[in-house]
């Protein structure tokens, strides 16, 4: 549900079986003692680079909206958050 995948009940067994096989393999990481090891956040050392705080050209409103499934008056349109009253 968290991932919003819309999983159906009949698919749950199929994925559960495959994922438990993968998780079993992943479980072997538990064999390693990593208490004193630092996690890798970036594999390659990077320096933070800053740029001048000046506006640069970006997308126009038309470009930004061009791929939207539905739009109106320059806005993205989505379905109502709640179902309409019957």
């Amino acid at each position, binding site marked *: 549900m*968290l*991932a*919003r*995948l*819309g*999983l*159906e009940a009949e698919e749950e067994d199929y*994925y559960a079986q*495959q*994922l438990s*096989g*993968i*998780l079993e*393999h*992943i*479980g*072997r*990481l*538990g064999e*390693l003692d*990593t208490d004193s*090891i*630092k*996690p*890798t*956040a*970036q*594999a*390659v050392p*990077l320096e*933070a*680079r800053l*740029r001048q705080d000046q506006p640069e050209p970006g*997308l126009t409103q038309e*470009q*930004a909206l*061009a*791929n*939207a*499934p*539905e739009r109106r008056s320059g806005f*993205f349109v*989505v*379905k*109502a*958050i*709640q*179902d*309409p009253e019957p």
Partner: protein
Amino acid sequence: MSALHEEGLVQLHRLLVDREVSAAEVLDDQLAAIERREPEVHAYLRLTDELARAQAAEADRRLAAGDGVGALTGIPVALKDVLCVAGVETTAGSKILRGYRPPTDATVVRRLREAGAVFLGMTNCDEFAMGSSTENSSYGPTRNPVDARRVPGGSSGGSAAAVGAGEAVVSLGTDTGGSIRQPAALCGVVGVKPTYGRVSRFGLIAFASSLDQVGPFARSVADAAHVLQAISGLDPRDATSADRPADLLGELEGGVEGMRLGVPREYFEIEGMETGVRVAVEQALAALERAGAELVEVSLPHTDYGLAAYYIIAPAEASSNLARFDSVRYGMRDESATNLLETYLRTRRHGFGPEVRRRVMLGTYALSAGYYDAYYLKAQKVRTLIAQDFTAAFEHCDAIVSATSPCVAFPLGAKTEDPLQMYLNDVLTLPASLAGLPGVSLPCGSSWNLPVGLQVLAPQWEDARALRVARAFEALQVSQPQPSGEGSR
């Protein structure tokens, strides 16, 4: 001039500059070759012939004027369907992006465009670059040009197959855990995964951001080096791209005499290593030794844990990256829903294929409260151990040489029902990805008449060294051809 499409970039460049042929002629021959091979191979999701003709005409203007001509001017290039091309449908092999036309070029695409390259089309790939066979594409599989009953590898299978089949001179792919090197190996072509940070990812549809890199496929090491040179370099629009200019061509012919080549014991004992692959790689090592390299046995003791660490880190990052496909700003929308939440659920249910769903589930689980330390943090620590393995090994050698894939191209459908078996294809490429290293795969003979790939890894930023070792081996191959050849090229 009937076989222009079989020429390499370097040879075509010479012919173009000398005005022996025009870019338009090169393109016509290339499109004819695509028409012949494409029904069998299905390397492309869509061709961009109109754009290509305009680009070829522009290249011919530049060539005639002798102005703004570089190695890529007039060269036909194929692009993996995860690289945004302004105004050209780009779908990442997914139904959820059907019809998406990016407003801007990816930086690598812009650089090729400015260099005068000619874009043939978008190549097939596993959905969102998740897979090792190109069978996870929403638009049908690509077939291996050497044997059409077999997969081309993946996820950049279309880009590898296009180059292997003579349907492109060079192409771009992306490599997250082996998605350039493994298909290059299975199709018998050269593939390069650069150091993480060498190439900008701006405009690449993201899979796993701490791993993704863009790189070239070609039929020779020099051709691949030319493409990598053209796409490399700092890009203010990708904060992970580095300011580390490099001459990737200068050292290419330096040879291997006096170089120490590390042979990792664990990479020859890995689960699923086929005898024919091991024999071909051992013969390659012997040839490199005869050419003056010193072979040094090295150890990468955490190799067996690479797959497990990768299948936490990459899905975790993917689950986050793919959250953007909410059918609001772009992508398909399932119109049957009556409210917003239902729209998300139905769109993602029908828009994503099974492998993408598996990985999003796995990644969401690994990042969820209560499991973060046990999975994601643990995997990032193991990633440190894997990187330390390489650092220690490179104290004893200049580059590491092994097989790229433990197996040759397998039949379509052979591994689709068992995700873990599919993941094991990448067991020799994943560790270098986790460590951010550059790697080259190039053909080294065959097993069962199918291509075997040799992988050359180098320390971070030493892409030129990996290319040099690869080129040295390639030069030995040309002077001593393998009796079994490498298929139908």
